[in-house]
């Protein structure tokens, strides 16, 4: 009996400490969203009334819908522009100003949001003064601002995928009679599509999440969800916000779980196929 190896204690303990550190705030938030009490920090029994109130809050619902629209449109535009930028960065090894180009493309990654927001605001103001467009700031200006910084993320994701792309695949397609455009559309694009999907999802969440830049470039009737949440919290934290946050957390977790499950399925199938092929 005494020879039984002692189970290590420290590693699991550290792991659980890490989990608590990461997830305790979220769990508390979810629990308090079902709080009966009006006060956020005082427990007053179970209830779902704040969810009902949230749905009836027209302003909040409008802001959420607006944010989703902006995020959706931003993701598409950022994927198109970011892919183009990524291709230029990886494939066009020499042209004048290449270093400047890659520097400028990735600048939004390291630039503080405040500076991006402020500089874009100045741009929009002077543009409307000189050329009369945009007449007023609103959804379009938020969209442009979001596309600007999301493009940077997509460009980085796509260019890293393109760097390990086997060039002989493109050469094989051209060798078999496909011109450059066709090769790109039927060979390159499908193969790098996981990077495009990742870039799309990243842009969508970044846009949905952004508060600072949107605050600078939004207009009177274009409050996004983070702005709405932030302003209502400033007037006093309502348990309604907890309910909203819980919904978001659940949605995001479901999406992540689904993605993980699909990837594991694909991975398993691939591994089984390769084993089968090796055995034959």
């Amino acid at each position: 009996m005494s020879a039984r190896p002692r189970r290590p204690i420290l590693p699991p303990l550290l792991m659980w400490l890490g989990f608590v550190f990461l997830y305790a705030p979220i769990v508390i938030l979810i629990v308090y969203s079902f709080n009966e009490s009006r006060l956020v920090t005082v427990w007053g029994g179970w209830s779902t009334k704040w969810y009902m109130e949230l749905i009836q809050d027209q302003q909040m619902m409008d802001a959420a819908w607006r944010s989703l629209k902006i995020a959706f449109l931003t993701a598409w535009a950022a994927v198109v522009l970011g892919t183009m930028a990524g291709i230029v960065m990886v494939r066009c090894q020499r042209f004048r100003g290449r270093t400047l180009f890659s520097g400028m493309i990735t600048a939004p990654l390291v630039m503080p949001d405040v500076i991006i927001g402020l500089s874009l605001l100045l741009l929009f103001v002077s543009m409307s003064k000189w050329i009369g467009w945009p007449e007023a700031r609103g959804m379009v200006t938020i969209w442009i601002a979001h596309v600007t910084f999301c493009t940077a993320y997509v460009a980085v994701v796509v260019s890293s995928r393109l760097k390990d792309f086997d060039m002989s695949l493109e050469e094989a397609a051209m060798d078999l009679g496909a011109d450059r455009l066709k090769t790109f559309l039927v060979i390159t694009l499908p193969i790098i599509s996981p990077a495009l999907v990742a870039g799309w999802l990243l842009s969508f969440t970044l846009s949905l999440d952004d508060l600072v830049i949107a605050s600078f470039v939004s207009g009177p009737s274009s409050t996004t969800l983070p702005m709405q949440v932030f302003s209502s919290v400033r007037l006093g934290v309502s348990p309604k916000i907890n309910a909203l946050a819980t919904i978001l957390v659940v949605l995001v977790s479901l999406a992540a779980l689904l993605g993980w499950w699909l990837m594991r399925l694909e991975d398993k199938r691939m591994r089984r196929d390769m084993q089968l092929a090796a055995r034959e």
Partner: protein
Amino acid sequence: MGQDTQTRDSGATARTPDDRVEDARVENYLQVLGISKDFDNFRAVNEASFSIRKGEIFALLGASGCGKSTLLRVLAGFEVPTAGSIVLDGQDIAGLPPHRRPINMMFQSYALFPHMSVEKNIAFGLKQDGMARAEIADRVAGLLKLVRMTEYARRKPHQLSGGQQQRVALARSLAKGPKLLLLDEPMGALDRKLRGEMQLEVVDIIERLGVTCVMVTHDQDEAMTMAGRIAVMDQGRICQIGEPGDIYEQPASRFTAEFIGSVNILDGRIAEDYPDYVVIAGDALETPIYVGHGVTGFAEMSCAVAIRPEKMKLSHDEPAQKYNKARGIIQDIAYFGSHSTYYVRLPSGFVMRTILLNAQRWAAEEFTWNDDVWISWGDNSGVVLTS
């Protein structure tokens, strides 16, 4: 091929100019004329010229970095040559982009499209030509049968083993019926055992279809097994072109002799120069070397003699002949089962390699380490190298 010889024989009495033009087209089906390729002050290919008969399998053989792959990529159209021209079946193709050349290539990595099934991969080239769907299906079925992959038609490339992937890659590059097939290190990604089988199978398929083929390899066994003629390349230049036997038995330069197979190279100078033989004196041996072929050279010219290890005899007793022998001590033995290589140290310090075929069981036991032995060889064993 058979047909070509026939027309040549029967038309020998009354040859018309048209026949001669046709002959030239068959003989010089692919003509590579003075191709050079520079990369930023570095000359990868230096004035390479050769021509290939229709239906021939031609190998570019060389160590890595000798420019053979660049030359192949120039033929495929992926690199634009700095100078020179390429004429294929009477058409100058040097200016054409890859997708307009009647040339297809099998890539070293196979470059199978990972998101397409085996049949879609093979059909890809035919689809680009706008061929009718039913016709494509017929062609693909025929090709799958040719490479014995019919039952794998719906699999994706990652579901295939290395040898199967190679068969698909071969079928895909043959699908369009190219005038010229390019093979880039065709067996490079296969393990040793599979290599031997696939070499013969690939040659069999190519010859059955009568496709003209240029292949690139760094593996001399592969080049000798598969190709009808070989061009040995070094530092961007073609050193020698010939059939495998010529390259091995009659190397034109020291580089070729050393690159192909193993060889003993003895430096010396011409002592006696006659039309049908030369005697060469060197420092490595105590007796002069007698070589049974004439040389274009003069007395006292420095040269070298290359003798292949398997063309030597090993014995305990001194051979009767006056020339072409040396005594020494066995310094090392490498036993390969089918044959053994003996490293014999001569009194001059030169280490001579000789190979003994183990024609009988335990034949290798006749000689052992530190034995005093005699090496001897015939008049026709050595080749004089003047460059």
